[in-house]
């Protein structure tokens, strides 16, 4: 047992760290580190820098533009990105639909879509959930009927993240109502500019526009955009979930946010002393830090098992549950740290460019909104209750 990085791993970390340090635009890093709102342009600018360097899709096979890194190297890369304040790569293209197209897509789909994902030419979003199909995803109703060389799509998707920016959406659609309901689901790629597609914003409790409803009314989709076989969409969706779980725990970002928490708690005063020195607050921070230390080791244990060829399986659900709990506690303690100055609600000041007057410390502005927004993390990507079902079934055999 050796928890130190090998000299090769250390050299790798130095290499990626140096690249990120000299290529990450400081204005973007500042927004990330200070929890400001990121624009589409910010995300794309950074993704293009990674693309130019060949590091946009570490999880892809090298022949498709991946890096060939092992799980520990991916972890080190994530860590270097998070530490520097790089925005996360939007997962829908690179980490979600990309691997599905690689594994099950047609030659045309691979040749057409994969390069555009890598170069950020297409912004992808996900069409899974529906008003009547949340955790019970297989009850989805959006229909795709074959008419000649097209599918005609009708229905409604929801909780569609950043769809307002998207060029493409990958959807689970119902192509059959007979037999097992999972077997009537297909995986379809739809151009968001098609006539009949309507995107309506859903404003979440912190007041931001992050998710949408997407409506499909007689949308014509070329049959070439069906991935793999008709009726196999459920299998592809499960593949997508079990693939590329590197970074699912979010350990690297949590470590960065913990440093931020400690920094502001050292500046905030309580009874004339730093809040961080107050035993009551300090204990909460310390317990969180200890949980995060443990999660980092657990994450690395899963990663090194993966490096040795054991496929990442339902262990990822453990990482998702624990990681999201820690993320939520972090946002909660940050908000708590600034006390009453969490209350002023001035969304216009959350952009990186805001030069107007502020109330309270500069770092305090977006913290309450972040806390409210982060209630989502134990719900999305398969709620933590669904993750527990997965573990109960696939690890414990219950």
């Amino acid at each position, binding site marked *: 047992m050796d928890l130190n990085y090998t000299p090769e791993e250390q050299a790798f970390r130095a290499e990626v760290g140096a690249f990120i340090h000299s290529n990450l635009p400081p204005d973007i890093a500042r927004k990330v580190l200070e929890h400001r709102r990121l624009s589409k342009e910010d995300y794309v600018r950074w993704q293009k820098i990674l693309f130019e360097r060949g590091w946009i899709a570490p999880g892809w096979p090298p022949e498709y533009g991946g890096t060939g890194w092992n799980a520990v190297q991916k972890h080190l890369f994530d860590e270097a990105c998070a530490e520097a304040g790089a925005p996360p790569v939007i997962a829908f293209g690179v980490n979600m639909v990309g691997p599905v197209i690689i594994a099950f897509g047609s030659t045309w789909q691979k040749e057409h879509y994969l390069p555009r994902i890598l170069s950020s030419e297409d912004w992808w979003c996900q069409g899974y959930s529906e008003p009547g199909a949340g955790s019970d995803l297989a009850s989805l109703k959006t229909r795709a009927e074959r008419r000649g060389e097209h599918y005609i799509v009708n229905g409604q998707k929801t909780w569609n993240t950043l769809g307002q920016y998207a060029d493409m959406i990958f959807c689970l659609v119902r192509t059959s109502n007979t037999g097992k309901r999972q077997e009537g689901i297909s995986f379809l790629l739809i151009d968001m500019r098609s006539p009949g597609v309507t995107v309506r914003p859903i404003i979440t409790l912190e007041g931001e526009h992050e998710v949408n409803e997407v409506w499909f009314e007689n949308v014509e989709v070329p049959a070439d955009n069906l991935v793999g076989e008709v009726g196999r969409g459920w299998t592809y969706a499960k593949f997508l979930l079990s693939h590329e779980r590197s970074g699912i725990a979010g350990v690297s970002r949590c470590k960065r946010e913990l440093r931020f928490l400690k920094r502001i708690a050292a500046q905030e005063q309580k009874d004339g002393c730093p809040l961080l*020195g107050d035993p009551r607050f300090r204990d909460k921070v310390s317990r969180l830090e200890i949980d995060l230390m*443990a999660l980092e080791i657990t994450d690395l244990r899963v990663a090194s098992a993966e490096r040795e060829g054991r496929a990442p399986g339902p262990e990822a659900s453990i990482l998702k549950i624990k990681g999201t709990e820690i993320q939520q506690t972090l946002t909660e303690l940050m908000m708590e740290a600034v006390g009453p100055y969490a209350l002023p609600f001035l969304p216009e000041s959350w952009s990186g460019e805001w030069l107007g007057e502020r109330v309270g410390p500069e770092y305090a502005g977006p913290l309450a909104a972040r806390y409210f927004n982060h209630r989502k993390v134990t719900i999305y990507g398969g709620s933590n209750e669904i993750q527990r079902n997965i573990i109960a079934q696939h690890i*414990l055999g*219950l």
Partner: protein
Amino acid sequence: MDFNYTQEQQMLQDSVEKFLDKNYSFETRREIIAARKGISAPAWEAFAELGLLGLPIPPEYGGFGGNAVDTMVVMEAFGRHLVVEPYLPTVVLGASAITLGGTEAQRRILLPSVVDGSMKLAFAHWEPGSRYSLSEVGTTARQEGGFWVINGRKSVVLHGAIADLLIVSARTSGQPGDAHGISLFFVNPTEPGVAGRDYPTYDGMRAVDAEFTDVHVNAESLIGVLDQAYPLIELVVDRGVAALCAEAVGCMEALNAATLEYLKTRQQFGGPIGRFQALQHRMVDMLIQYEQAKSMACLAAVRVDSADAGERRRAVSAAKELIGRAGRYVGQQAIQLHGGMGMTDELNVGHYFKRLTAIDATLGDGDHHLSRFAAAEMTAESVPMQPKSRWKQLV
């Protein structure tokens, strides 16, 4: 980055498991506990033969020069089988104190007898009222002629009654609470002036509360440097903590396995109770706690012998704190999921729970280690403390 046991460690694990499976059943353990001494002579002999007693002792004194990960392998197995033998006080605490602090002569004389099983040790450090503090030493040792004269009391000395030699901390200068001025001595329990009460603990072990009245020990009984035993005691205790963390992980693993088996076999409402989601999710949380605990036990084992004392303190205390919480959760829920059966003395579940509870209260509980972790962090970040801080700067 490598989380695997080496081939030697796997072989060690296999041989310990094989021995315990065959010779240390729950029923055998019950008989051992019921007997007067509360330990098993045949088991101790077998441990010597298996090389466990010399595991962390350097080869020049007859041992195998193993590291804390080797100890982890043994302690995990001991946790799975609820071993009550005095391995922690003798091999982990006692032998470490001698190896790290003893003179060459002390090592040559004592360590080979630990390795061959003829010498058992006990670590008498804490006192009534000192709680888990390492520096609240009120027992005194004063020099008189060529002797040290020891006076004071030591509390809950694990397996003190069967020890051939006690390792006793005493104040040679300063006041209780000072890190400076503490020294370590060997005390033969048969010396005049050594008295005490031997009693069982709730987890099937035994301990003594010892009293020292004008106990004379010779000059060669001093371990390490006069007045400067504090860092040695701290390191020895940290090794003990790392070992306890591994034992707790073994206990949790066994408890989770037993509970999962119960969920799959216990029939109620016309089927196994494991089909109910409320119980499934509880079991999943027990698994998550176990995985997190296992991660921290690895971290503690790898970092306990780190040259950087700050890094060592941080890792060891973080591990003990988390494992205290995890052990409590897993233990309590194992009982809950076993229902009435979990409440019985007959089933082993309650005994694992009691051992986990005892582990939290041994060598510093969760709160103690949380404070120590925070103090290590604060020192590293130079955050000023509250004026009435209860944290003490450790050396």
